């Protein structure tokens, strides 16, 4: 069992280690490891407009997707819980599962078909890219928030607030949001990690002017190996940071629930 675990760790860790080594290597051609040491590849990425633009675009898309998730899904969950309509809840759950069940390729083709018509010529628009990412991240945010709020005493607390005369908006801001805050942050970490690392759908629907960072990485591997490694390491660092924050947030949330 131990041996399998080690093998698995090597399988997982070796490519990352090679990427890291490669990003600092001066030259890497037909050898097991690169030769020399340099920070130039990172500097080159920052100085190359295309990379910088793609990185900023990824960040912007990520922020907008996070915002969209909060603005759409948070009131949706609140309303589903308060209405207590089991059919609506069932339908929303099914809808939320679709992006997980359907391959991204299928969603991508759907976008191409739907948004390349004369009446809907929007393929390549940044807002469409944001919607694409929103659809992909919808289940992760929705189920995180829904599960946590179902476990909480929200519906009863809402009734209490209602009996004191609080209107819907006051109840949403003074009861739902404080109860949901930790779940929202945890959900957003996952959403951000998925959005920043998303390649397949972005590659199909992003335009030349709004390519995201992962789509540009593909091109990097056609050029210098060191540059490609450095570009990947940056993405990897972002993903790891978000994963750590997400798990820290989750453990905090669980501690809070136990208390």
């Amino acid at each position, binding site marked *: 069992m131990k041996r399998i675990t080690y093998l698995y760790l090597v399988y997982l860790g070796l490519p990352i280690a090679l990427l890291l080594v490669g990003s600092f290597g001066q030259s890497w051609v037909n050898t097991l490891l690169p030769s020399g040491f340099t920070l130039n590849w990172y500097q080159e990425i920052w100085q190359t407009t295309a990379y910088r633009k793609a990185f900023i675009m990824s960040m912007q898309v990520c922020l907008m997707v996070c915002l969209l998730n909060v603005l759409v899904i948070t009131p949706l969950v609140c309303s589903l819980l308060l209405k207590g309509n089991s059919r609506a809840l069932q339908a929303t759950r099914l809808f939320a599962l679709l992006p997980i069940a359907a391959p991204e390729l299928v969603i991508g083709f759907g976008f191409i078909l739907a948004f390349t018509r004369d009446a809907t010529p929007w393929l390549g628009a940044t807002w469409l890219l944001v919607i694409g990412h929103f659809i992909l991240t919808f289940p992760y945010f929705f189920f995180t928030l829904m599960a946590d709020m179902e476990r909480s*005493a929200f519906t*009863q*607390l809402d*009734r*209490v*607030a*209602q*009996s*004191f*005369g*609080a*209107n819907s908006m*006051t109840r949403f801001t*003074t*009861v739902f949001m*404080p*109860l949901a805050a930790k779940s929202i942050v945890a959900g957003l970490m996952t959403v951000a990690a998925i959005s920043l690392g998303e390649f397949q759908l972005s590659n199909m629907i992003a335009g030349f002017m709004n390519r995201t960072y992962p789509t540009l990485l593909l091109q990097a591997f056609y050029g210098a190996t060191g540059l490609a490694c450095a570009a990947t390491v940056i993405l990897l660092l972002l993903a790891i940071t978000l994963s750590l924050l997400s798990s820290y947030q989750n453990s905090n949330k669980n501690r809070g629930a136990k*208390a």
Partner: protein
Amino acid sequence: MIEFRSVSFEYPNSRAGIYDINLSVNTGELLAVLGHSGCGKTTLLKLLAGFEQHNQGSVWINGQDQANIPCSRRELGIVFQDYALFPHYTVLQNVIYPLKIKKSSQAEKKAKEMINLVGLSGNEGKYPSQLSGGQRQRVALARALVFQPKALLLDEPLSALDATLREEMRNEIVSLQKTLNITTFLITHDQEEAMTMANKVAVMAQGRIVQCASPEELYNNPLDLNIARFVGKTNIVPGIVKGADRVETPFGLVQTRTHRFANNQTVNLVIRPEQVQAVDSATQNNAFAIEKILSTRFLGHTTEYQVSLKGYKMKFEIANSLTSLTHIFIPKQTIHVLNGA
């Protein structure tokens, strides 16, 4: 004053509900709705609070029909079984919440006064998770009372507390209710809670009110066997009316008031265990010889005996000072007679 006038309600796609409820609670009165789980008592509270809308009849609060008044405008203070305190707010923030919603002046001062009234001064900055069960219950009470509601609704408020704390809180709630002279609607399945706290008890079964009376009336004159069994311990003795004020039972002739019943009619005698007395001989009416003591149970200030009277088992409670137990006496006026059909 709270009134239910011929109120009926059924949950959608279900036959569960309440039927033809007529009930009134006078100002400053504490009414307990008593019943087993699923009898509809919480539904009654939900209709009163406005969480559900009745299908028939009307609910009135202080002379105003509540038909088109939403929950948020009924001005009722509600205390739930599990306290329902806002976990993200401190004690003070919880108690001040209704006042802030109502934009009340001097909110903090009023909230602190109420916290003081429920005996929680010094705990204003604590969060609900830092309080004991009893303290949380007090916060819930303070929050429900702070905005001077038209009535106080208590939904099984003590069921989550241990026995000692329950008794303490019972007294405190009654004392607060009397001090503030607030109309109170208490939902409970605990007959002791209902009997000790309420001015009036409404017993519910299968969505209907089966009897509504003072605790004394309910205990001494239950309308049927189910109520007799539900409200306090009891011996139900089957019998047949044999002439004026005499009932033939499995252990002999018992003298009791039978004027409502015909000769030879089957009846049930309701005999409360604590009304039975120990005597030395069977020389007087309603005194019977004990054939065998089947069991004894020490209850602290009394002992519970189960004895056999000519093969019929009867339970009673008497003081511990007893040295010998040979006969029992059942006072005529303490026996309640019910139809045996």
